[in-house]
């Protein structure tokens, strides 16, 4: 596993070198669609890292003890994914050696730019998560609780201002919306929770740790609620955009040549299918069902990010009434290219590699291993399981 990921990381480094030396011509981006896989991955990762907040929020703000066992892994995952997002941004810059300019506040920085503002949000977020993780590993619960709460509140800023990067751009009809920041918070929470569910289930299974089925199911219920919130937001956002008379952006999103990103991924896999599964009487109450719904959400939200970045900028700018001929009137196209995909996958692999290494060498999982693995029928939801995990927690607490 480590070996495979290691190889992929090497591939990533090579692809980056190619892009750095030859220029970004080796990617799929263009003057029509200037942001591509890397920025999509960046905002996706930022969203995914929200899984950490969910758990911090649950554990420390809402004081729900049953989420404690997954607390550390969640934060570690969140931290790594967020770092991955920062790597994506750095790598996407045309001149990455100048990235320090993003931090020259007041002097060389333009604080009306969302990128500049976000450097504060993101920087602070990373520091807070590091602090929180350290506190959690050192078991300083009270401090961890305070930091966790700040973290949750700070995270609202992080996600809404990430949404603001897109939502405040007046010229791009598909992007422009005051709901975007809220959409981003909701999408972050759904994808974060979904990924959290997946990672917890997989990691606990592979390391033969026990996780209470109830935890997963309640996360699943939380997921379904957040999906409904997101669905409502998306609905009203798109309704506003398709209402009379100014609707070109929404029409392009719904029927242009990237319609499938919106309908199949964002709506289908990101919203409808998970809701169907989660509200199904049988499937919604099984870990398997929740896992499948989570997979759907994870893929769907990636599609949603892509549906933002690609058709958002690919839409033709109507400079003048009439049909603009030729190149200037053609919608942007974003081809999938080798080096960009290799780089994107490589960054994913990098995050995964670090995560796996972290699992191996850091104490992120509950101490005890259990013979049977978690996917037991309702019967195991008994005191046996609870007793098995409880001593471990107490011993460490």
């Amino acid at each position, binding site marked *: 596993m480590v070996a495979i990921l290691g190889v992929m990381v090497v591939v990533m480094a090579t692809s980056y070198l190619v892009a750095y030396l030859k220029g970004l011509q080796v990617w799929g981006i263009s003057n029509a669609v200037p942001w591509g896989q890397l920025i999509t991955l960046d905002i996706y990762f930022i969203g995914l890292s929200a899984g950490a907040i969910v758990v911090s929020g649950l554990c420390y703000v809402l004081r729900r003890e049953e989420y404690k066992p997954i607390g550390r892994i969640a934060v570690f995952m969140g931290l790594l994914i967020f770092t991955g997002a920062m790597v994506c941004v750095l790598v996407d810059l045309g001149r990455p050696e100048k990235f320090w300019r993003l931090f020259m506040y007041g002097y060389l920085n333009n604080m009306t730019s969302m990128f500049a503002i976000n450097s504060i949000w993101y920087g602070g977020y990373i520091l807070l998560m590091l602090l929180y993780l350290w506190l959690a590993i050192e078991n300083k619960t009270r401090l961890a609780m305070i930091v966790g709460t700040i973290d949750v509140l700070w995270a609202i800023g992080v996600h809404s201002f990430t949404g603001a990067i897109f939502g405040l751009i007046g010229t791009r009809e598909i992007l422009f919306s005051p709901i975007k920041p809220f959409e981003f918070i909701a999408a972050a929470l759904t994808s974060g929770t979904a990924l959290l569910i997946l990672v917890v289930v997989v990691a606990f299974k592979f390391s033969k740790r026990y996780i209470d089925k109830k935890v997963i199911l309640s996360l699943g219920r939380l997921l379904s609620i957040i999906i409904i919130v997101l669905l409502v937001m998306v609905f009203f956002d798109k309704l506003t955009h398709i209402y009379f008379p100014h609707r070109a952006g929404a029409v392009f999103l719904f029927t242009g040549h990237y319609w499938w990103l919106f309908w199949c991924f964002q709506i289908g896999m990101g919203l409808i299918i998970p809701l169907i599964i989660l509200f199904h009487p049988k499937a919604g109450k099984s870990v398997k069902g929740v896992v499948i719904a989570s997979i759907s959400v994870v893929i769907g939200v990636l599609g949603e990010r892509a549906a933002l970045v690609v058709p958002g900028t690919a839409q033709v700018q109507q*400079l003048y009434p009439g049909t603009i001929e030729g190149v200037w009137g053609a919608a942007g196209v974003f081809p999938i290219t080798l080096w960009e995909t290799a780089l994107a996958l490589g960054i994913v692999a990098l995050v995964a590699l670090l995560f796996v290494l972290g699992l191996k060498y850091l104490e992120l999982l509950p101490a005890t291993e259990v013979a049977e693995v978690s996917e037991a029928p309702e019967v195991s939801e008994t005191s046996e399981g609870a007793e098995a995990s409880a001593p471990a927690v107490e011993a460490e607490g």
Partner: protein
Amino acid sequence: MAKWGMIIDLDKCVGCQACTVACKEENNVPHGSPQEQRRRREIYWNRVIAVSEGEYPTVRVEFIPIPCMHCENAPCVTVCPAKATYHRDDGIVVQDFRRCIGCRYCIVACPYGVRSFNFKDQQEEEYHRPDLPPTRADRGPWPFPQRIRGVVEKCTFCFHRIDQGLKEDKKIGIDVVPACVEACPTKARIFGDLDDPDSEVSRLLATRGGFRLREELSTHPKVFYLHG
């Protein structure tokens, strides 16, 4: 302080594209290739678009030259994180290559599509231009003598001509104009000080009334068009 603006008379413009070529010639803008055009990577500081309407035989095609609008409420200036693009005192929106980090946010924000990213280096041998200021390559507000990949560029209203002209006490808009204005054979492009009521641009706006592209976005561009 002057407020430089441009007027493009769509009635006189004949779509010859001398402005596009002269601008490339003046500012050492790289040319494209068939692949780059297909992939929308060609760099233009000025381009001429054709907008068509109607059905045979009542057809209409209009030619519209589009340089950077040097908007007063420039969205690109708002979103640039590194202050690489900013307003000069005289209203020109400058692109500083030394500061540009290549994040391309300005390209996303620009309503007119006048900004281009350098997806590759410009070949040195073809384009070495010792005559263009300054002599240091990738530093400061100049992409020449040699362009470097990874930064965004756009029309500058030929401010190198304006600055030199002011130094030599020349009249901007009459003796000294941007390369596109100079090259236009029908004299469809006029340049001058919008704040000066005696300038040609002010006079034309008063007598013929101009419009701007995408007024609804309130970018307040400083390139006005006279009706065709």
